[in-house]
């Protein structure tokens, strides 16, 4: 193995370690058989390196590539998609080992490893993933250095890798803050296997409570004028009309009937922009009655809006809303649908509702009866309601009496339907965190909410929020403040007080950390960037941007250039020469300067004649330097160390062994 063209075994081992380090975290999203393949290829490559096997011939390589492609197809049944593509890349990086002959290719594989490292961040960007990426970077940097180091020194390599990372950090932060957030150039298929938090198109008891635990941002809304009052912020997502006794579902056929979008009186309308956080979006959130004029977003009936095809990434749309407009969209099918209940469940509730329907003639009266019932029933709003049995509405209303918003809404709708009043469940978000300085609203997943809608003859669909009836704070303070109280309440359970107290604190702390990460890092988008820039610059104009860039980027570079190109202080690219020249400069300060055209040996001879007190030291230095620079006999690294040690002039030689040899 010639030293020039092929990499040392040490470098090979480090490359394999680096590959493994990059691949292992990817296996949380990619199939496990990749590890087996990588192991086999690495073993094969090791055999090639130790000259036991030859490099595979082209037909074998083609067969391997074909097998890899087949494996991917069998795993995913498709090739287009994020996971198959990353799998393909991992396989390519692994198989490249089998034709890695030159240092250049070694270098290439290392670079591909960096790319894979970046690919991992397509799937997850939590703090833990970033810390992992830093560790992987260290491994890669060590492997990269092994290509150039003569000695197999892992510890100095690690140290250098750390230094390099630390040096890159300010640049990284700078770029993070100012680098333009360019919108996606193409739509990337989102990772599919991972369940995203967010609304689903069906509702079981406990779903929204689950969603409320997430601190993630759902969307932002910026209003053109003043925002509506908090209790009016019912962000309508989707309407659930089908109930099978356990689960509430969207009416699948609503969308196919191509309903006519409601006409909004523009003068009375409120105008605002909604920006959904990245994710897969199957429906949109609006304040009814709303209208969106965009070709790829369509009206889905029941005052719902949805994209034609599920859209991924960040989605922004403009909405016109008139919350005062009566909701009168109705047809016979719809009314019949919204009265339908499965037979034979929740007999207690059904009996109650039938009493109402006999007692009161109009829907309005029945509704008031139900509202009175909810107020009298002393129901408790809690994030962690007890599990309910088969007849869940009965269990909630008459036994446990503890529930989250979906319990309230769903049971209310059940009662209303049983009492002969058309009713349906609406799911969406309620409220939001208002940012007064910039006039926009942050709506988090924890603001997820469910409420009821009732059809009243004469006035159309009316929103009824039984949750708000029972806990008016839900509207006044938002879910978060209530939620916090809930957790405090739960921690008070007597048996496991101490054991859970610290765990809870830790969890809360981690939650906070993740929340901060999400808020400040992951959600740092074009908007927040421009906000930051406004904070720094006051007013973002091209001139100011250019000046800021010049100050931050140009000035340091200019200083660096001055330091580097200042005459007399030119720094050599070669480390040994730099040490030697530094020593000569030090000696020049003490009165003995080397001419540029003077060779080290000629300089030594002159010093021996004119300033013999420096001669022993300079002799040692010169021998060291000549040995390192012009002669390969000595170990270059040892000589470098010695040169480093000898940089300061002394009047006595540091060791006796260097002296001699005329």
């Amino acid at each position, binding site marked *: 193995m010639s030293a020039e063209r092929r990499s040392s075994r040490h470098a090979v081992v480090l490359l394999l370690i680096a590959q493994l380090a990059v691949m292992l975290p990817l296996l949380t999203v990619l199939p496990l058989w990749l590890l087996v393949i990588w192991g086999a290829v690495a073993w094969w490559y090791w055999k090639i390196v130790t000259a036991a096997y030859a490099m595979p011939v082209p037909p074998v390589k083609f067969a391997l590539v074909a097998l890899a492609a087949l494996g991917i197809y069998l795993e995913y049944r498709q090739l287009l998609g994020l996971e198959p593509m990353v799998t393909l890349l991992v396989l390519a990086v692994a198989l490249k080992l089998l034709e890695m002959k030159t240092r250049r290719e070694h270098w290439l594989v290392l670079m591909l490893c960096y790319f894979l490292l970046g690919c991992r961040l397509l799937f997850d960007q939590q703090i833990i993933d970033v810390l992992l990426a830093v560790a992987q970077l260290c491994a890669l940097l060590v492997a990269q250095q092994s290509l150039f180091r003569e000695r197999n020194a892992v510890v100095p390599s690690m140290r250098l890798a750390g230094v390099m990372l630390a040096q890159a950090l300010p640049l990284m932060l700078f770029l993070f803050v100012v680098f333009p957030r360019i919108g996606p150039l193409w739509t990337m298929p989102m990772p599919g296997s991972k369940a995203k938090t967010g609304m689903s198109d069906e509702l079981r008891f406990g779903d929204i409570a689950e969603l409320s635990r997430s601190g993630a941002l759902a969307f932002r809304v910026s209003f053109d004028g003043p925002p509506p009052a908090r209790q009016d912020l019912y962000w309508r997502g989707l309407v659930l009309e089908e109930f099978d006794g356990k689960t509430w579902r969207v009416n699948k056929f609503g969308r196919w009937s191509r309903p006519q979008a409601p006409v909004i009186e523009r003068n009375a309308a409120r105008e605002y922009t909604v920006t959904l956080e990245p994710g897969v979006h199957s429906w949109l959130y609006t304040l009814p009655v709303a209208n969106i004029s965009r070709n790829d977003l369509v009206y889905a009936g029941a005052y719902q809006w949805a994209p034609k095809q599920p859209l991924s990434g960040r989605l922004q749309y403009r909405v016109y809303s008139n919350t005062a407009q009566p909701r009168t969209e109705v047809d016979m099918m719809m009314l019949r649908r919204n009265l339908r209940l499965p037979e034979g469940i929740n007999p207690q509730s059904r009996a109650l509702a039938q009493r109402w329907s006999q007692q009161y003639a109009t829907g309005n009266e029945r509704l008031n009866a139900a509202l009175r019932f909810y107020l009298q029933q002393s129901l408790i709003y809690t994030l962690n309601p007890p599990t309910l049995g088969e007849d869940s509405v009965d269990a909630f209303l008459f036994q446990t009496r503890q529930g989250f918003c979906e319990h309230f809404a769903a049971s209310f709708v059940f009662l209303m339907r049983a009492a002969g009043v058309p009713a349906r469940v609406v799911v969406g978000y309620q409220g939001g965190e208002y940012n007064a300085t910039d006039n926009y609203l942050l709506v988090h997943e924890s603001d997820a909410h469910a409420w009821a809608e009732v059809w009243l003859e004469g006035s159309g669909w009316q929103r009824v929020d039984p949750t708000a009836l029972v806990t008016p704070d839900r509207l006044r303070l938002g879910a978060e403040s209530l939620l916090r109280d809930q957790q405090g309440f739960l921690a008070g359970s007597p048996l496991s007080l101490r054991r859970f107290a610290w765990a809870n604190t830790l969890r809360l702390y981690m939650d906070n950390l993740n929340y901060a990460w999400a808020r400040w890092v992951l959600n740092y988008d074009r908007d927040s960037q421009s906000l930051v820039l406004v904070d720094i610059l006051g007013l973002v104009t091209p001139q100011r941007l250019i000046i800021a860039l010049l100050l931050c980027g140009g000035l340091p570079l200019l200083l660096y250039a001055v330091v580097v190109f200042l005459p007399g202080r030119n720094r050599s690219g070669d480390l040994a020469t730099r040490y030697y020249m530094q020593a000569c400069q030090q000696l020049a300060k003490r009165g003995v300067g080397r001419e540029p055209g003077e*060779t080290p040996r000629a300089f030594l001879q002159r010093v021996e004649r004119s300033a013999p007190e420096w001669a022993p030291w300079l002799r040692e230095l010169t021998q060291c330097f000549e040995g390192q620079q012009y*002669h*390969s006999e000595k170990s270059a690294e040892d000589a470098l160390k010695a040169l480093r040690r000898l940089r300061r002039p002394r009047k006595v030689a540091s060791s006796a062994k260097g002296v001699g040899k005329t």
Partner: protein
Amino acid sequence: MQSEQQLLRDVSAEIGRIVLGKERQVQQALCCLLAGGHLLIEDLPGVGKTTLAQTFAIVTGLQFRRVQFTSDMLPADILGSSVFDRNTNAFHFHPGPVFTQFLLVDEINRATPKTQSALLEAMAEEQVTIEGETRLLPRPFFVMATQNPLFQSGTFPLPESQLDRFIMRISLGYPDARSERQLLEGGDPREQMSGLSARLSVEQLLALRERVKQVEVRASVVSYIQRLIAFTREDAEFAFGLSTRAALALLQSAKAWALLEGRDYLLPDDVQAVLEPVAAHRLQSSADSRADGRELVQRMLAQVSVLV
């Protein structure tokens, strides 16, 4: 390494017995021989050019021929010619003086350019083509040419392209007083030459040349050579820069010098030592400067930094 150095020291000491006080020039000539190039000695008549050459030839043990160039000389006088043999009715080739291992060309600039170029071609290619037939010259083939300074009358100065073929040009100069006195007291040096003996065989010489090729050259010295060459091409004092052949000659001579110094690796000191003999005769100052080749070389040595 030791034996080679001993051998080379022995050779120069033996030459030094006759050529007094010219140690440096002897070293330079030896360097030229080891580097596989040809040597041009430029000096006034009578300062020992021929003595140096003859002593050199004897001590190095090479087959020696001498040609005195005159203005009526023809190429055939050096290369040889075919002569009709009446007995065999055929042409027989009579090799000229060039077919030798060590050729001393006296006063090369007295011959016409035609003759000069015939010799110089032989030097460059180590073979001659006479009447359509190519004949190889013996190996080693070493030419030592002398020339009188150009201001002397009756000379045809060698053009730059032909000067370039000599790897080195040296001059002897007047001997110092002590050596001259020693010489005057010692009697006729020509007589003393009979006491000389060959200290080097052809095999040894070829082996030494092999050793020169193996001298280790690190990138930093190569870049120093490149900087030197680049300086002549960029600096305003120079009429024109040094050629790539000059750079090669510099590297080759420096390697031989390193071997003479007893080292198997090249130092910038070696390059500096051979720079003047290698570069001075190839350089010309630009019109607005009156520096001669030696001053230009001094300028190169002073201004081009050894370390970067």
